[in-house]
Structure formats: C-alpha cells, structure tokens
C-alpha cells in the first residue's frame, strides 16, 4: 500500500466519511450557505446558529460527496461547535493553510487536533477543493 494513500485516508477520515457527524439541518439557524465543487458535482448545505454572545451554538450539514469532503465537513462541525466567531475564523485560516501544504505557522491548530488528519490532502493538490468545500461554505455563510 502506498504511503500517500495511507496518509490521505487515515482511519478517522474513513470513519467520518462513512458516518458523518452533525449530519442534518439546524433548527433554528440564522446562518446558511451552499458549498459546491464544480469539478465533480459534490455539494453540501451548511446551517448554523450564532447566539447573541457570538458563539456558534449549533452547526450541521447535509450533502453528498467523497470521503474527503464529507469527513472534512464532519470534523469541521465538531471543531466549530461552541467556538466564538473570531476563533472559528482563525481555525478556518489555519485549516486552509494546513491542507494546501503551508502549515508552518498555525495559530490555533496543532498535531493533536483531529483536523490534522486532513494534512495528507496536501499530497493530492486536486483534492484540496474537496477538503475545503465545507470551510468555504462556512466562510461565505458568515459574510451573508
């Protein structure tokens, strides 16, 4: 078995890809956005609720996609739930750096983090968009 493949598809990725957490729609929610990967047709819908203390109280997603995109969305919801928006934005920029191979100066993420499992995506440049689809939906929902 090739090492790159093993690194890409770590146990936690396959697990979250097959059984994504926080799958569904938040009720109520006050932010939502659609994510779309025009290269392959994968898509998701992200919904979350931000309370009056700027904390993401609940966050869920639905959609269809490959193991990488589903696992990334699933791990994202686990990570962001309960976080303040400014922290969530730092995690966003750390994560996009991590999967695009520029992971030297991470601010909030470290190797202990479950999101670190997606670092292997850096070895497959064409798959970076799979890993970041949910995250860009999050960012665009924040702006909406």
């Amino acid at each position, binding site marked *: *078995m*090739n090492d*790159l*493949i093993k690194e*890409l*598809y770590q146990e936690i990725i*396959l697990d979250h890809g097959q059984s994504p957490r926080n799958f569904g729609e938040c009720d109520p929610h006050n932010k939502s956005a659609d994510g779309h990967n025009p*290269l*392959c*047709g*994968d898509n998701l819908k992200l919904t979350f609720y931000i309370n009056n203390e700027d904390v993401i109280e609940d966050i869920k997603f639905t959609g*269809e*996609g*490959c*193991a*990488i995109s589903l696992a990334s969305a699933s791990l994202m919801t686990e990570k962001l739930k309960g976080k303040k928006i400014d922290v969530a934005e730092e995690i966003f920029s750390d994560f996009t750096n991590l999967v695009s191979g520029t992971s030297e100066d991470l601010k909030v993420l470290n190797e202990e983090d479950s999101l670190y499992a997606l670092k292997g995506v850096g070895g*497959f440049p064409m*798959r970076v968009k*799979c890993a970041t689809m949910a995250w860009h939906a999050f960012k665009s929902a924040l702006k909406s």
Partner: protein
Amino acid sequence: MLDIKKIRDDFPILDKKILDNKDLIYLDTAASAQKPKVVIDEINSFYSNNYANVSRGVHTLSVESTFRYEDARKKVQKFINADSEREIIFTKSATESINLISNSFASKYINEGDEIILTVMEHHSNIIPWFLIRDRYKCKILFANIDSSGNIDQNHFESLISEKTKLVSITHLSNVFGTIVNQKIINLCNQAGIPILLDGCQSAAHIPIDVKALGCDYYVFSGHKLYAPTGVGVFYGKENLIEELPPYQGGGGMIADVSTDGATFTDLPAKFEAGTPPLVEAYGLGVAIDYVSELGMSEISEHELRLTNYALNKMQELDFVDIHGANGNKHSIISFNIKNVHSHEVSSFLDVEGIAIRAGHHCCQPLMKHLNLNSTARLSFGMYNTEEEIDIFINALKNCRDFFTK
C-alpha cells in the same frame, strides 16, 4: 495488426514514472490524448524554421506558414472525407466550433418558439451554447431521452421532431457511455429535412469518419483528443449551408488575401476565421492526422474496440463494479462506479499506482442527474494502451475496493 510496442515508443510521456516509480498507465485519452514525438518535434520545427503569420505577408516565411496551414486544412478534409477544403474551418476548440455554428445559425434561422433538439447525454459544450441562444432568441431546447444502454431512445427522439424543429445537435460517440449514435437517428433528421450537427470530439479519434456517408450537415471535433496539440478545433459544414451563414466573429483575415504563390481565398473558409488562427496548432493537427492515417484509422479503431471489450469482460466479473450502460455497444470509453466508493477515492487510489483515469461528472451534469449519480469514474483508451495495462488496472480496482470497504 498494429505494432503497439512501436507505437508506445513514439510517445515520450509513456516513459514517465509516477510517484514511487510506477509506470504511467494512461487511461484518460477521452479527456485528452498524449502526443507522439513527431507532433512535438514538428511544432518545434515550425517555430524554429518556418514561422510567420498566415495569409497576410508576401515574404518567404509567410508563404511557408500559409502553405503549412492550408495543407493542414486539406489533410482534415481528406480525414473526414469532406467534399471541399472550403468546408473546413479551424477554430480554437470544438467548443468554439459549436459556439460558431450556434451563433451563426441562430442569427439567420432561429425565431421565438423554434425548437432545437439535443440529448440528455450531451457534454456541457453542446448544451450551454444552445442555452445562450435560447435566452437570446426565446427558442426552446428539447432533450431526447436515452435508454439503459446509453443509446438515444429512438421513439422519444422521433416524438420531439416537429415543424418547429430547426436543428438537431447530438454527440456522435458519448464521452460517458462510449456508445455511437445509431445511423437511424441521423437518417430521421435527413428525411425530415432538419439539419444535424454531430459532436465528434470522441469519435474523430476512435473511428474512421466519413461526413458524407454519415449524412451529417455539421461536424465538430478538437485536435487535442486526436493526438494533436491543444488550441485547435475543427468546424465542418456543408458548403451550400455555410455559404449562406453570416460570420461568427469579426476581425482580420476574413476577406480575400494574396501571397507570393498566388493563393487567394474566397469567402469560405476565411469568412469564419477572424483573427490570426491557431496556425501552428492546426499544422500540428495535420501532422497528427498523417500519423494516425499511416497506422490506419480502421486498425486503430479495431485495437481500441478490442481493448474496450477486454476491459468490459474483466470488469463484468467484478461484482463490486457497476458499469453504466453496460449493455451498450461501447467504443474506447467505459464509465463505472465501485459500489459505495466515491469516484474521487477510486481515482486518487489508482493515481498512486500510476494509473490515470477520470473522475467526476465529465461535463455531463444533466446526464448525471438523469442517472441519479453524483459522479462516475471513467477509463478511456488510446492507440497506445495494452491488455497488460488493463490487467494492472483490474487488479488495482480490487485493491481499491478492499481498502475502502474493509
């Protein structure tokens, strides 16, 4: 019989090693074909020895360039058995070819309420240009259904034809199913007096093309899928039809010009070639046509059909593989899914084994929706592929299944 070993020696990229020194197994020719050394070398030689703009200057290099460019046109004409080189228009791509005919045809013939028939399995490049026409002229785009084999549902197609039908535009060889359009569909259009455009992007590289025997009015294809460089496409239209059509773009080179060898151009084909054309690319296409013609398109076609059937038989033995349109008569293209594994995973897994296949919607989202699929994996063959490569591919599929569904 083709000497595949000798052919493989003609393609420098086949020596490339992928990642951990795996031999490249290129099964993505439907997306773009690799280039033989003679094409690469001749492009280099053109730029090094003969290059200047065409049909403009009267100096030696302009003549040499113009001669090469026009010679390529003759080669294309012969390759698809067109009546005249005036029927061969060089474009930058098959996509531009379809945009050319859709714009030019619509501006003359399309009015509100008119209908254009496509099929649900068209490539986006044979859908979106027509959507743009629909929005501008308030006409209708009708989609013919397909059957479970990946062929056009003939009854449904026939039911769509009416006095409102102004044009039919359909794929000649499906880039998802590998199925070839039934001649009856073309005959139906001919009998009804409806002009028909065949999208030949996949067929031109895999089966001998005779536009007259086919009975199509328009035919388009791209160079890069036919072992030629990117940046050149072909638009063919029957002379009496395209003589009546207005230009698609305006610019230099659309009017008659003179060079030292006395060559002058009438309205066609220059009327449709505004601006400096992709002349080196067109020359490269001519070289590629010489290359495949020398080997024989029939021989290439037979070899690729043999590979297709070999792969189909092996894949049908795998109970974890779904082949799309499995019962259709496929040529050079097979789309499939591994049960419960996304096509991206399949493609990434095969990639590290050195195997290049396509994953995704293949620019056929209406078809994917019709099939209720998110995406498929696709292998496609070129003249350089072998049975041994298919064996390695099949073995990798098994490993892939084991890895993801353990």
